């Protein structure tokens, strides 16, 4: 799925913090969307949860810095962190370059459904979100 200049793979789920989730049985991988990576600017630093940390759906579990901005990472569902992308310590801009690939953030064992949107529903949500900002609305209309 493409919205304006941004890609949103159809096989992923999304949350309203502009994060994507790839669900493979109970093992879920989390990253930031192409839209988020593009509009935030160059990522300088990512603080990820430690392996073994218990996540609570919707609660902050890490942070990401781009330019002068520090944003939070959120747990998409309850669960336990099983892996983190350690390569981001050396190369945080992988989040900008390959948000759905090398820029993944962490993987966790999900213990609940979370509050996620499938691609079509996410599109409706993002359309409404972009309507708040004329510049992004223009970009989304391509």
């Amino acid at each position, binding site marked *: 799925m493409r919205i304006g200049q941004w890609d949103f793979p159809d096989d992923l789920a999304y949350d309203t913090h502009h994060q994507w989730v790839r669900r493979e049985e109970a093992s879920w991988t989390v990253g930031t969307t192409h839209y988020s990576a593009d509009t*935030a600017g160059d990522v300088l630093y990512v*603080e990820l949860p430690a392996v073994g940390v218990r996540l609570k759906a919707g609660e902050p579990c890490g942070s990401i*810095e781009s*330019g*002068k901005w*520090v944003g939070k990472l959120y747990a998409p569902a309850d669960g336990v962190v099983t892996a983190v992308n350690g390569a981001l310590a050396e190369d945080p801009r992988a989040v900008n370059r390959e948000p759905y690939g090398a820029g993944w953030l962490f993987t966790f064992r999900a213990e609940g459904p979370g509050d996620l949107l499938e691609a079509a529903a996410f599109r409706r949500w993002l359309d409404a979100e972009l309507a*708040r900002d004329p*510049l*992004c609305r223009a970009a989304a209309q391509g």
Partner: protein
Amino acid sequence: MELYRLGEVEWADSQLFYHALPRLGREGVVLCRPASPYLCLGYHQDLAWEVDREYCDRRGLPLFRREVGGGLVYLDRQQVFFQVVVHRHRPGLPARREEFYRRFLEPARLALAEFGIAARHRPPCDLWVGERKISGNGAGEIEDHYVFVGNLLLDFPVEEMVGPLRASAAFKERAAAAMAANLTTMRRELGFTPDPAAVEEALIAGFGELFADLSPAVPDAALLARKEALRERLLDPGWLAEPGRRPAHREVKIAEGLYLSERRVAAAGAEVVALLLLREGRVEELSFEPSPALPGDSGHRLARKLRGRQVEDPELENIWSTWRAGYPGALGWRQLHQLLRGRPPEKEAGAGADRAVGLSG
């Protein structure tokens, strides 16, 4: 939108109010300035890496780690702070970060204009007068709110800013000179230090343009209580000492697009230390500490050849090659690449370059 015009406050209070508002689910604009100086770290900065604690202890200079971005700053009563807390779903809030910054810098730009100072937004997040920065800023997310913090510099003591840096004397000296050359203040622009109250009035007028519902408020019991509860957590030594980002080399951002770096590399059995001022990726200044890898005046000659060049310019390797022909055994291309670009060259390029002159770098 509530306006808290606090005037001069206890130093930590100048950070605590805007951290407390979002935790109460409240928006607000806070104007204040600290009664005494302190150092303020960005959220992800590493205190031990950035700051000379002994220097701070000797001076009685307290430290604070804020929950928003930006770098280490020296703050004092010669700066008027503006701090904006807005709900992330507030209608009309720009989604694109650069536009968000521009929107929230506009009141400060208008305030400066009131004093006859023509500032402009220098993307992503600076206000510049001519070619000099006049406002420091940072932003981020606290709870369900976006926070934008900034200041207008009435005056700014660059020596006080560089003193606490954990860096060499040469780095501090160069940083002070770069700041003096690339920062400005209202005093410098006007020839006198304006009355902070008048600056606050101008900021209020500017924020009134941004928020039609801006209305004066005083901190209520809930806000005061939350602020005090946060004091314990945000001044906790453990929070201050949280490990954070440790860049590969010492670097300070002077203004948008302008960075001073101290880079080190091993070469020819010695260490080469370069002090590099980069403007938009171009070498504005470069100097090397004396090193066996840079015999005689070779370091000066190399620096002179590189000044004005983009660090990514492919021609650099040829410049280096010509220079190196006069100094066999001196600094190799791989090391110079590392010094200028902060990373080693691709294997093929580095190996080929050194083979071309029959030397190992």
